[in-house]
């Protein structure tokens, strides 16, 4: 083999390749592999005496697992096995008597792969190399080199595929056998096993994962298709295979003056924007997760039951029913968004607004939401309808907008689009949120629904629950009321 003449761990790659997803992983694994083979800090690599033979340079699976647990601070042996199997799957360690590259936590013997064969060398061995390899194994009269069934099938297939150049392949295989014969017996044992492990990675046993497979989205950026592919056995590359995903390397565009000017504009807006304090933001996140904890089926048991576990769909039926559960009603109190998200909550809110003669706000908001989802051709007509109904002079459902938003909206209507009412909608939303919504939550209609489904409790119990509730509602309310914008009938 040409191994002895190759540099160990050669990485003839461009910068781009160094940062590809697989390379990042290989670097991490190689770091571990170097440490684990260290003479003082690593696992003991020994020659084991077996019946009539010696098995050179091996380590047991459990030795590896123990080392990983100790040196990577892992408590759970299952996790150490998972990492060990990952390292094995990429071919950095391999069982000496099996083609399947997994790690077992027992006395099974493993060997370390030679750096020449490491995946980080960007091997993409051709079928000609594989054919030479299988061919030379049949030439040597050794039981340990006998082909497995799937390998014999592969060889037969390759013989058919390369029928015309089989003589060439045969000759190369003979040449390889000659080179191998010159090596020391023990060394050959080790090299043969490493070579086999290399092919187990690139031509895996049927049923095993091929870890050399790449995400096709990343493939495109990776390899320069012009680069000549290395042959394992030193053959000159005579085929230039073009994968459908390879394109010529993209040249990075140099920044133009406009690019930098645009960037400066962007950075200025960033700077102008008000940043919230981290502590406030963190509290808000914490508050949100706490509030919704009861509604998260991964953290709290849903009632009546989780349909996925119990196979009982009552939970889903209740969610869509017109008679909401107490938990569902409580959610409407978290935010105006939640009340509007639930059709039953929305209807209740609408009824409440009707009782206060301010339903036009919600109806306007809903109409604009609907407008945004309409097909483009319907938008102009619908936009005009909304204007006529809610904003025009003498409109039947006149909403109260500040003059600024009114002006903007009327301008937008000259060229009506999906977002013509965005400013107005935002304004009305804020109004509902700070004004009507808070009264809604205190209304009899809502309170009755919230408390009606409660299980019978003592008077005391009911009061404290109500206290808790109003406190949590208080937390989610926003600031002051907008003055001077009360609705009149």
């Amino acid at each position, binding site marked *: 083999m040409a191994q002895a003449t190759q540099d160990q761990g050669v990485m003839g790659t461009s910068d781009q390749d160094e940062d590809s997803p697989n390379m990042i992983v290989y670097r991490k694994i190689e770091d571990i592999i170097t440490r684990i083979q260290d003479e003082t800090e690593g696992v003991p690599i020994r020659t084991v005496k077996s019946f009539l033979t010696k098995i050179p340079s091996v380590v047991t699976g459990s030795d590896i697992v123990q080392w990983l647990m100790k040196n990577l601070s892992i408590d759970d042996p299952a996790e150490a096995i998972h990492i060990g199997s990952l390292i094995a799957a990429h071919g950095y360690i391999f069982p000496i008597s099996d083609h399947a590259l997994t790690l077992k936590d027992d006395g099974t013997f493993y060997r370390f792969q030679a750096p020449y064969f490491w995946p980080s060398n960007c091997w993409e061995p051709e079928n000609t190399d594989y054919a030479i390899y299988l061919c030379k194994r049949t030439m040597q009269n050794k039981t340990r080199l006998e082909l497995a069934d799937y390998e014999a099938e592969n060889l037969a297939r390759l013989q058919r595929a390369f029928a015309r150049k089989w003589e060439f392949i045969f000759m190369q295989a003979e040449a390889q056998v000659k080179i191998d014969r010159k090596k020391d017996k023990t060394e050959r044992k080790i090299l043969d096993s490493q070579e086999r492990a290399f092919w187990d990675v690139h031509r895996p046993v049927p049923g095993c994962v091929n870890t050399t497979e790449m995400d096709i*989205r990343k493939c495109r950026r990776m390899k320069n298709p012009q680069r000549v592919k290395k042959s394992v056995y030193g053959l000159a590359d005579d085929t230039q295979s073009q994968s459908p995903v390879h394109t010529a390397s993209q040249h990075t565009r140099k920044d133009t003056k406009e690019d930098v000017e645009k960037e400066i504009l962007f950075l200025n807006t960033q700077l102008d924007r008000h940043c919230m304090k981290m502590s406030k933001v963190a509290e808000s996140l914490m508050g949100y997760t706490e509030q919704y904890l009861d509604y998260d089926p991964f953290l709290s048991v849903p009632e009546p039951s989780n349909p996925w576990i119990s196979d009982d769909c009552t939970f889903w039926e209740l969610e869509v029913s017109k008679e909401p559960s107490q938990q569902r009603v409580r959610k409407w109190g978290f935010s105006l968004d939640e009340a509007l998200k639930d059709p039953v909550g929305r209807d209740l809110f609408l009824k409440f607004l009707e009782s206060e003669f301010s339903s036009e706000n919600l109806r306007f908001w809903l109409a604009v939401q609907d407008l945004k989802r309409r097909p483009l051709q319907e938008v102009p007509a619908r936009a005009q309808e909304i204007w006529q109904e809610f904003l025009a002079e003498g409109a039947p459902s006149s909403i109260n907008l500040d003059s600024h938003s009114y002006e903007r909206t009327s301008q937008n209507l000259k060229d009506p689009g999906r977002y013509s009412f965005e400013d107005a909608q935002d304004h009305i939303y804020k109004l509902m949120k700070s004004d009507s919504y808070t009264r809604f939550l205190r209304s009899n209609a809502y309170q009755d629904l919230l408390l009606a489904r409660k299980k019978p409790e003592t008077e005391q119990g009911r009061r404290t629950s109500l206290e808790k509730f109003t406190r949590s509602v208080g937390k989610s309310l926003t600031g002051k009321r907008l003055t001077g914008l009360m609705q009149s009938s």
Partner: protein
Amino acid sequence: MGEMEQLRKEAESLKDEITAARKAVNDASLQDTVSGTAVVGRVQLKTRKTLRGHLAKIYAMHWSTDSKLCVSASQDGKLIVWDSHTTNKVNAIPLKSSWVMTCAYAPSGNMVACGGLDNMCSIYNLKAKDGNVKVMRELAAHTGYLSCCRFLSDSEIITSSGDCTCVLWDIETGTQKTVFAGHLGDCMSLAVSPDFKTFISGACDSTAKLWDIREGQCRQTFGGHESDINAIAFFPNGNAVITGSDDATCKLYDLRADQELITYQDSSIMCGVTSIAPSLSGRLILAGYDDFNCNIWDSLKSERVGVLAGHDNRVSCIGVTADGMACCTGSWDSFLKIWN
């Protein structure tokens, strides 16, 4: 000093000012604030269903808003709509191009979309009168592969592409409404905010960007990752963003503080993150990795609280239902698994 140099200097000093501004609001880390909270207990989710039927790698899946139906896309050239509760296949849609990389379910449930190496986003109508599922529109204009797509409504869809842009399309006319350009690397993933006014994109330039849909502009950019961002999602409150990257970490960025809050990493996790989804409350973050597992993180305490191990190859996609009841993982092993 040349004009270019002057401009570059100006840009650099602005960047320094922004970094200083971010530092100024950094009065307490997330870790400090939550130090009083206990870690969520060990979360053990089990596989409740396995959806079998694809014959090759699954690249993407997306839940319908009804929390029961979902769509998956595989390199066997099929889009399958599943009733995940019964495991029945509702539709098996053959695709023109088998190199599909993404799929999406419309919120209305009327349509699904997919795309990939064909650089197009194909929209399929599931509710055609004659019962046959056919291509309704082919949205073609991208000059790179389609990495992700998400419906805003039955009329509009947003796509992200390997040509470094995201696009808002009008489905009816099949035209581009807005092009969101700014990323310096392939856009890998996108997510729409709960209020449908903004969306975020993650790209191979290691940044995530927040875009205003109406204005067509980038509002904020978040850096910090050391490699491609493959997956991105909104935190359920709409004020924070979670990302997953090839650097084997996930990060939580807050939009209002305009910076990273926390990183989810472990020295024993070496493989890249392919997919990410928050639980309903946001307290848990589920992330799929190249090492065939999913890890469950306590989002506030940044600790691993669970593992979903069951796939025999990379986990390529993950999704949590709208009602938070179940999580679905899709893998290169051609299976989808439902967990809770």
